[in-house]
Each structure stands twice: as structure tokens, then as C-alpha cells.
């Protein structure tokens, strides 16, 4: 449904950020995008909902094209984006206003708003905080409000641009849980991260390296086909464990399952 066709992007001509990127994202996929600092991950996210426009090639969402200014509203309605810093994406002065903001922009009728707001806040377990102000919330809570603000707009694709990287372990787990719940409800999830542990549960991993696609496939195939450290990344613990113990079994989302089943098998 979301198609990148030969996309080039640069902020300054002599420093290309993304080069000749082509791929397709399908409805209902859970995709992890990984890559080191400066690999072009965040630029890619912004190209996806038309915050940036490709210099060459095109980005299309079904019949909509980010190069067409008339399509931008529709695209942003369908492709939601959650950023890294919870503080810089809290536009208004209360949780309720924050979730309402996007709905007002979409001209959602007033009667429908209350319902959508409630549903979105429930999805991120923040329904008790509707009246809270940003400085009364922790980073993780603010991030969940940002997610609710996007969820309320009822997008079909949600992009999380390093949305877990500024949070403590608890906050991170909460956000990951929300992402998986949304995925089960049928949303397409695109999770940009450099926490390698988080990519194992994805359907598909895209590895960006210096603006080029170095890998596109299931996480289990990533570590056998690419040398991860060459791309500024490290192996997740599960893979290190497989190597240390000489396990040949396919990679599980949770290494504990692998260990238990192999131990009892022997």
C-alpha cells in the first residue's frame, strides 16, 4: 500500500541522505527499520507521510502521491507519526486538548470527538489523565499521549521514529506493548529503532546504511546475511546467545522459549 519508488533525498546536494530506495509496505505488516546514527532512518520516516518530498522518484500511498500538495492532507490522515522527544510533540496544554488537536484538523464532528478521544486514551491506558498538563506527566506518559493523539485520527499506518529511545525501561516496555496491541487491531506498524532487542518480533526488518537499503527481509535472516557491526549496530542478546551456545535452531522472538525447549529436549 505504501510504495517507495527510486527515492533520492538530500538536504544539500553534495551530501545525499537517501539513494535509490525502492520498497513496498503492505497492510498489516509490523516493520522495524534499523540503522546507525546518520543512516537516514528519520528522513525516511518523514518522507513516508509527506513531511519531506523526494528529490527524485516518488512515494505513493495507493493512489495518493506525496508530491501532490492536494494529497498531503489525506496522506497525513492515514499515516500517523510519533517522534522521539515526548516534550517536543506536546502542542497544547492538556492531554484532552492534545488528542483533540488532530481531530479538529480533520474536521471530525464535535459529537464524534468525545468518543474517539476516550477510545484513543483507553488504547494507551491514559484515560484517567484527560485533564493533566504536560509537566505533570512522565516522559513515558507524554509519549503515550502522543500515540493517543495519532491513534484518535484513525490512521492505517503508524510510524514510531525512535519513540522509545528517551524512556526508562518501564516506559519503553509500555510503548512496545501499545505498539503490538495496535498491530493486533490491524494497523500497519513501522518501528524505527536502534535497540536491536526490539526488532526480533517484527515481521520484516529494513536495514539502512549510508542512505541505502542494506537488507530487507525477516529478522531471522538478517544476522546470517549481513555483518551487523559494519552498519553501526550490534547483535541482539538472543543472537549472541545462539552463537555462544552453538544453537542452530531458528531464532525465536523470546530466547527463553528456545532455551527451555532445547534443554528439555536433550
Amino acid at each position, binding site marked *: 500500500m505504501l510504495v517507495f519508488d527510486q527515492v533520492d533525498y538530500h538536504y544539500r546536494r553534495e551530501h545525499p541522505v537517501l539513494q535509490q530506495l525502492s520498497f513496498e509496505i503492505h497492510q498489516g505488516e509490523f516493520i522495524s527499520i534499523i540503522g546507525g546514527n546518520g543512516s537516514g532512518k528519520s528522513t525516511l520516516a518523514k518522507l513516508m507521510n509527506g513531511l519531506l518530498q523526494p528529490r527524485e522518484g516518488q512515494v505513493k500511498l495507493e493512489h495518493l502521491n506525496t508530491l501532490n500538495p492536494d494529497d498531503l492532507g489525506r496522506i497525513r490522515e492515514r499515516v500517523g507519526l510519533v*517522534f522521539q522527544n515526548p516534550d517536543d510533540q506536546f502542542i497544547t496544554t492538556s492531554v484532552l486538548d492534545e488528542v483533540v488537536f488532530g481531530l479538529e484538523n480533520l474536521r471530525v464532528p464535535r459529537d464524534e470527538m468525545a468518543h474517539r478521544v476516550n477510545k484513543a486514551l483507553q488504547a494507551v491506558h491514559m484515560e484517567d489523565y484527560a485533564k493533566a498538563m504536560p509537566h505533570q506527566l512522565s516522559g513515558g506518559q507524554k509519549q503515550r499521549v502522543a500515540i493517543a493523539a495519532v491513534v484518535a485520527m484513525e490512521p492505517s499506518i503508524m510510524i514510531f521514529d525512535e519513540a522509545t529511545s528517551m524512556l526508562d525501561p518501564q516506559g519503553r516496555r509500555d510503548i512496545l506493548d501499545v505498539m503490538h496491541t495496535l498491530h493486533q487491531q490491524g494497523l500497519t506498524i513501522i518501528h524505527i529503532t536502534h535497540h536491536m532487542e526490539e526488532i526480533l518480533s517484527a515481521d520484516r526488518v529494513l536495514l539502512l546504511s549510508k542512505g541505502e537499503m542494506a537488507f530487507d527481509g525477516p529478522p531471522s535472516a538478517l544476522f546470517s546475511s549481513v555483518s551487523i557491526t559494519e552498519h553501526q549496530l550490534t547483535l541482539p542478546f538472543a543472537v549472541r546467545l545462539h552463537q555462544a551456545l552453538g544453537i542452530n535452531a531458528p531464532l525465536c522472538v523470546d530466547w527463553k522459549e528456545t532455551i527451555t525447549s532445547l534443554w528439555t529436549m536433550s
Partner: protein
Amino acid sequence: MKDNIIWGQYINSDSSIHRLDPRTKLLSVLAFTLCCLTLQTFGGYVAATVLVGGQLLLSRVPVRKFFRGLQPILFILSFTFVYHLLVTQDGIESGAFVVWRILLLVSLASVLTLTTKPLDLAKGLEQLFKPLSRFGVPVEAFALMLMIAIRFIPTITQELDRILLAQKARGYDIKSTKGHRQVYAYLLLVVPLLITTIQRAEQLAMTIDARAYGNGKGRTTYRILKFTRMDHAAGGLMLAFVLLILYL
């Protein structure tokens, strides 16, 4: 400290004045200000004082808080008084009246800010100026700007605190430096603050865009300000009082 700024001077309570529509309060203050400028007679002053005093009582704002709010203008008041004393002929009298008038204005304005959240004020202003959008004035955009300003003052104050702390940790205390070093010290403060603020603004703009703001279709509003019977009554009373004062 953070609370202070977001709330302004707002005092959380549920008086009849708190419940009034911000537009009613804004218009009342405007009307009263205009009529204050025309105050001439002793009777007029007394009537105006009764009005302001009555509102203060109704607002149930603690007297202590109210007077603390007046402290900053004490200097201006005494300066005005002394100025009149020295310069004009019937010094004491004219000085007293001018001070009285300023006190009245400031008191009523305080009632407004003490009983209305900054965000509601912004909303009220937006609604009042809405008709102007027909003439191409971007009222909505200004309202968003105002809201963001209110929202981000505490965040930027925090940022400044953080930078001050970081500079202090590096051993530069602005207060203790002198001469050209002080210029440096301020540079140390301003450059990081500017850079982070600009980064913040860029990120915020991205977020606003990503949430489909300004897609050309206009917006709906969730919070609608509604005049209640209270507002009609209060507005009517205010009008009556203003007319009375003008008459006196």
C-alpha cells in the same frame, strides 16, 4: 515555579466569577477601562470602587493573594503620587485621584487573571476576534501561536535552568564574571538556548504538520465557549454600572 507560569496568577476555585465566559470578562474589563478614563466626580470614583470591590468579594480570591499581586505596582503608584504632588497645583488631590484610578484598573484586571486560566483567555480572545478571519486575518493561527507560547514558557524556562546549571557546573557563574568575560558568559547561555529552542520549534512544526494541521479544509472546535444566563446577567449588570458611573 513551572505551575506558576502555566497557570499565570490563576487561583483554582469555583466562584461565580470563575464560571463566567472569558469573553464576558474580557469585554467587561474593556468597558470598565474605557469608562475609568472618563471618571470625573467623587461619586463616580465611589461607584467604581463599589463595583470592583463587589467583584473581588464575589471572586472569593484570598485577600492576601490579591494584595501580594499588587506589590509590584506600589513603586509606580508612589512615583505617580509624588510626581503629581510636585508638579501640579492641587497636588495631593489630583495625585490621590490618579492613584485611585490606577488601583481600580489594576484590581479589575487582577480579578480577570486571578479567575481565568491563560488558555481560556486565549480561547476567549480567539472567539472575540473570529469575525476578523473573514477579512483574511489569520485568527486561528494566532490563537495556536498564543497557545504554544503558553505551553512552552515553562519548557523553555526549564531549558534555561538546565543550561545555567550546566554552565555553573563548568565553572562559569554569570553573576561573578566581569567585563569581556561577562559577554562570553552570556554567549555561553544564549547560543545553546537558541540552538535547542530552534530545534524544538522545528520538531514542533513537524508534529503540527504530521497531525494534519492546515490542510486547507479548516478546523472544527471541540471546546465551544457558550454564554450562559449568568453571562447575560453579569454583562447586563456591568453595562448598567458603567452607564451609572458615566452619568455620575
